[in-house]
């Protein structure tokens, strides 16, 4: 199966990238931008596979394609922030390995999953490498947008930008049906409410708990009536997001741990395996530390996701009279009644409050305080 099949509804970008992999318009640094969930890192990974692929097409069958997609290829480095940012030390060592010639592949490839999370120092370290890349090195950076707040202009100006679009709901539904074997009705529903986030669509389609948490968050705007509801709802939102994050982390952590344990020989049976067991435990402990710092990030991300859901609700209320496509079509009744009750000005103020809360979280405000402030503003209108 071709590696490009992993990308949902990104035909224009795939055309550009596969042409580059075949040798047309290749360059040393690429910037993948697009809304969350559109598949920036998937695109970067697939592109890396196609660049290393034996047939230069991203066949998905050759050893190069398979190892790139599995994240084990010797000449493809994948960096993602474990905490909330990528440090300069991490970037420096990366730039050093990036300077090497490929050992088995055609290129030495570095994928930076969240280039918007580079610290300023890290950006500068990367800039030097992007400015004068070694002959066989390719940088693939992923960021939500090419806005200077996300990616330094000096880096941006040295990259070829590939913009991913919000994948059409039809394409998402098709993938859910074909790849994940989800029944059509549920797939269509999940695709219509996920806001173009493919991973979230799959979660909503497969995970009952995720569905009910989304429903709870979307209950906030209409049920928020009295001032003393504020704390209850702020609490609800945070608990929902935390539960989401815990579920998400647990799913990943367990799989990683099991894999590492096998690799380090932690669960062999038989005589003389004690030494390996100890080494495995040490490695697993180190992994747990990394997972813990990643969990902080997952929690932030899932609060953000809940806030986006909320913001989209207000956006729907605002645009409802114009008849535009809704992001929460399954809540049309509530949206209609809210549109009738609230003045556009007050809806807009509420929308602003949600966006301010997202910004506050970016600036490291304690989530509970930021969310309480937001819910207060939502209640006031």
């Amino acid at each position: 199966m071709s590696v490009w099949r992993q990308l949902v509804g990104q035909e224009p970008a795939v055309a550009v990238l596969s042409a580059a992999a075949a040798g047309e318009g290749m360059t040393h640094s690429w910037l993948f931008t697009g809304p969350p969930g559109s598949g920036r890192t998937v695109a970067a990974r697939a592109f890396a596979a196609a660049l290393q692929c034996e047939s230069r097409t991203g066949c998905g069958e050759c050893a190069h394609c398979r190892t790139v997609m599995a994240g084990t290829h010797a000449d493809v480095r994948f960096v993602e922030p474990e905490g909330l940012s990528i440090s300069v030390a991490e970037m420096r060592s990366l730039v050093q390995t990036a300077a090497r010639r490929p050992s088995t592949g055609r290129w030495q490839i570095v994928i930076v999953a969240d280039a918007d999370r580079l610290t300023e120092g890290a950006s500068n370290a990367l800039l030097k490498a992007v400015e004068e890349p070694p002959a066989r090195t390719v940088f693939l950076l992923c960021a939500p947008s090419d806005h200077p707040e996300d990616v330094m202009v000096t880096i941006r100006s040295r990259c070829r930008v590939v913009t991913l679009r919000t994948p059409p709901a039809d394409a998402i539904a098709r993938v859910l049906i074909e790849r994940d074997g989800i029944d059509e009705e549920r797939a269509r529903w999940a695709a219509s409410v996920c806001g173009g986030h493919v991973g979230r669509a799959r979660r909503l389609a497969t995970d009952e708990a995720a569905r009910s948490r989304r429903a709870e968050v979307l209950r906030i705007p209409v049920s928020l009536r009295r001032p003393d509801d504020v704390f209850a709802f702020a609490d609800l939102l945070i608990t929902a997001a935390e539960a989401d994050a815990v579920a998400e982390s647990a799913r990943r952590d367990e799989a990683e741990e099991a894999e590492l344990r096998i690799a380090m020989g932690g669960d062999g049976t038989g005589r003389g395996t004690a030494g390996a067991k100890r080494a495995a435990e040490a490695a697993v402990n180190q992994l747990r530390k990394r997972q813990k710092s990643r969990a902080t990030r997952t929690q932030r991300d899932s609060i953000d996701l809940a806030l986006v859901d909320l913001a989209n609700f207000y956006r729907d209320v605002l645009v409802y009279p114009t008849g535009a496509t809704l992001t929460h079509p399954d809540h049309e009744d509530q949206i209609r009644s809210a549109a009738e009750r609230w003045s556009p000005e007050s809806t807009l103020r509420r929308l602003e409050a949600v966006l301010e809360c997202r910004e506050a979280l970016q600036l490291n405000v304690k989530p509970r305080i930021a969310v309480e402030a937001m819910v207060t503003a939502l209640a006031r209108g």
Partner: protein
Amino acid sequence: MKIRVERDNLADAVAWVAKSLPTRPSVPVLGGVLLDAGGDDGDGALTVSGFDYEVSATVSVSATIAEGGKVLVSGRLLADITKALPDQPVDITVDGARVGITCGNARFSLPTMPVEDYPQLPAQPQFVGELDGHAFGEAVAQVAVASGKDDTLPMLTGIRLEISGETLTMVATDRFRLALKEFTWKPADGVTGAAVLVPAKNLADAARSLGAAGSTVRLGLSSGEGMLGLSGPDRHTTTRLLDAEFPPYRKLLPSQYTSRAVLDVPAVTEAIRRVSLVAERGTQVRLEFTEGSLRLAAGGDDEGSAEEELPVTYEGEPVVIAFNPNYLLDGLTALPTDQAELTFTTPNRPALIKPLDDEGKVAAGYLYLLMPVRLPG
């Protein structure tokens, strides 16, 4: 996969490969060793391989192959198991997602990892020449002492290998000292010159284990010169080269000297070890040369101090020169002979240590350059 191998061969092979595996693999599959029976070369052998993106190690072991195949298992666990096996033939069979190891009455069952996820091993680079394994191991050890341990200066963590016809030169420096070894070897036809920088640790490890086997070591360099290959009988390893400029060291080597001392290496090293006990880490040991004697001193007024005097042959003006005791010891202990020559000009210019043969002549091929430490006051 269904094969039978000799216990000792298997244990040696797995132990050697497992040694180069990372203790904290960045991706889990790198903690595994790949067992490939009747693989691409199809010579009825089992190959055991490990790879951590930097260094790859492959050993072939003769085996009776009933059914070929590949399997990836934890290297650490397999090494522990094979080490403990009784001395009987070992049967390895793959059954679904587990691999069974039977040896005598002992039976083991190990989980496997997906072979498709295992990175491709780099190809063995093109043959450029061969040399005696023992001499090679010794030479690398003599040079590696001077290599830097600081990863932020990658060019100093390597050993430079220079091929110039029949001469092979190895150099390493960490800015404070420099070790150089020159010897003859047998280059392959058509190989005239090349210079590469090899991570010192990787080269030292490979040279030690290949040199211990006592046979000929074959050197290979990949066309892009990004890879160095070393192989002994049945064992192959590759290591990625450092892509950095080595300092132009030849012009640093002093061509003249005004003072020359002949040292009895065992006596001097013993004395330095004793005296430097009071020199806090990284501080200096002072060498006071006068005609016929060397006084070693370390420490100062506010801490402990120590002195020791030994007879030496010394030509030159009386002088006091100070060195980092560890660096000085490294140089002296790396020498192949018991007599050494220390030459220098002034206490702030580099000194040279060279081995002397039984007749008191400089034994060509090795030198250790050492920067003195500034004297207080």
